[in-house]
């Protein structure tokens, strides 16, 4: 049976759900309240009943539980096939996917297979009066948002930038769980994972205090880290520093990295391109230090300090040490 609905693909993280997926689910809840379309979460792989019920609390009206142990780990071939089958059967209006590496791997291929439109890395989502999904994507250096619609095919697909939306939670929420056993017997998984290494990394989108380093730090992440530690903050970097391979992309802030919600962000030596500043707009207090008094970053800061990082930061570290 088909019913018009908003689907959210729930990416697995171990035996739970990826945070980005819960953020997207929270936003889908909001879109549902506006449009009247119910929210269905799609969870692949085996999971115990308690955990499944808990996902409902994050805003779903219904869960499609793809009960198949071969889906416990991500696989392009198996996931695309399974999703394709249930989408063709149930014909959702909208399908949202978190723009994590796996999510992006899945979304592009699935959209091509379903012959439908996909908007990538959306930072705004809305449903208009006609029930059309309107996805906003930063374009051309992030100076503008292009609002994209998909009028002639279904589902309307979008991937959503991690950290963009806040999860919803209501422990009293109830919903139906429909168990589906996807038939993957005829599908060969052509990409074999030989080794998987996930570091115990910090999820930047949850960081309460963040010190973010740009080119002005000359890549001296030792100094930046020492300062961050002194104020109990996590560190983030701009894209150019991540591109130089100084630190993994899990620490990259901005439109191709993560969006922050820190209470305090201290920004060191960042010029302030809009690709970057879109990643700090939801932070509480923003303090920036840069040598250039005309730096664009100051337009996006609450407190602006014109000065030399290599003079000011060691002094700040000293002062924090004295206090402790």
């Amino acid at each position, binding site marked *: 049976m088909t019913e018009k609905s908003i689907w959210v693909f729930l990416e697995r993280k171990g035996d739970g759900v990826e945070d980005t997926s819960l953020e997207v689910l929270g936003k889908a809840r909001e879109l549902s309240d506006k449009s009247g379309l119910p929210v269905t979460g799609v969870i692949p792989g085996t999971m115990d009943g308690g955990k499944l019920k808990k996902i409902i609390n994050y805003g779903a009206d219904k869960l499609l539980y793809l009960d198949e142990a071969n889906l416990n780990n*991500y696989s*392009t071939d198996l996931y695309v096939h399974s999703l394709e089958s249930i989408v063709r059967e149930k014909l959702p209006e909208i399908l949202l996917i978190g723009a994590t*590496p796996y999510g992006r*791997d899945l*979304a*592009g*291929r699935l*959209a*091509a297979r379903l*012959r439908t*439109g*996909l*908007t*990538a*890395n959306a930072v705004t989502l809305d449903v208009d009066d006609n029930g059309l999904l309107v996805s906003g*994507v*930063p*374009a*051309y*250096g992030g*100076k*503008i*948002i*292009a*609002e*994209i*619609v*998909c009028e*002639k*095919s279904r589902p309307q697909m979008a991937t959503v930038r991690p950290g963009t939306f806040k999860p919803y939670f209501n422990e009293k929420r109830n919903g139906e769980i429909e168990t589906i056993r996807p038939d993957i017997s005829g599908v060969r998984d*052509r*990409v*074999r994972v*030989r*080794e*998987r*290494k*996930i*570091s115990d*990394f910090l999820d930047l989108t949850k960081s309460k*205090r963040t010190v973010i380093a740009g080119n002005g730090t000359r890549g001296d992440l030792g100094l930046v880290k020492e300062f961050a530690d002194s104020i*109990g903050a996590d560190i983030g970097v701009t894209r150019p520093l*991540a591109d*130089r*391979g100084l630190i993994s992309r*899990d620490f990259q802030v901005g439109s*191709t990295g993560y969006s922050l919600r820190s*209470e305090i962000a*201290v920004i060191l030596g960042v010029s302030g391109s809009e690709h970057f*500043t879109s990643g700090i707009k939801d932070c509480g207090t923003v*303090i920036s*230090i840069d040598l250039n008094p005309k730096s664009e970053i*100051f*337009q996006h*800061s609450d*407190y*602006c300090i014109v000065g030399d990082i290599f003079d000011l930061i060691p*002094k*700040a570290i000293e*002062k924090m040490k004295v206090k402790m």
Partner: protein
Amino acid sequence: MRNIIVCTKVVPKSDAVFFDPVTKRLDRTKAENQINDADKNALETALKIKEKYGGKVIVLSMGPQFFDQFLKVAIAMGADDAILLSDRLFGGSDTFPTALILSTAIKKIGDYDLVLTGEESSDAGLGQLPAQIAEFLELPQVLFVSSLDLSENKIIARRTIKGGYEIVETDMPAVLSIELGINQPRFPDFRRKRWADKEFQLKVWSNGDLGLSEDEVGLKGSYTSVRRLVEIQPSTRKKIFIEGTSEEKVEKMIEIINERMNK
């Protein structure tokens, strides 16, 4: 080793694109173009594989005729051949028809072991093209590759996932997207550049050469459309400049941090 096909995009340098708040249009006339940075990393990867295992490196791009100069840069860097897919009918293509056009051209080139792309383009940053090309070619895909090697007929690649990486193995042929910055793209060779400019015959294929119907490409073949462009709201930050000596600045900064931390 058979052909190594590298899909490249010519993109405007983003700091030279202006938004006209009145017409709500983009002014790209002042923008210089260049080969997308991640695509240069893909090309460098292809050239290294060629040096080690042989094969021909063929660069493929879609766009107007004047993009030929950028493909000649790729030739000067060491690519063996370059094909520009150029047709008015292609204008307005979103990712879906673009992937269809590129994959149709890749089939026409034929005899390939690897199709490489950059992880995403700097102008649109969608990164969905490689997966769609792989789908149309019915090949395995490995995205966000940070290093790779070949062994027999297999590809062993390290790909970035959230919080870490995976080492994966797949059979050739396959489609791989290469992460930005994983290598240092070589400089164009001066003598090769002169040869590319004067003698090299760039192939230009139109829609007729690919045999796609008019409904499959361009705006007609696209599933998404831009409803409108919105200027990003100016920030409402306080923008208070902290003045004084270095000591005073540091003192004030720590005061602000402590105040927020104790809230």
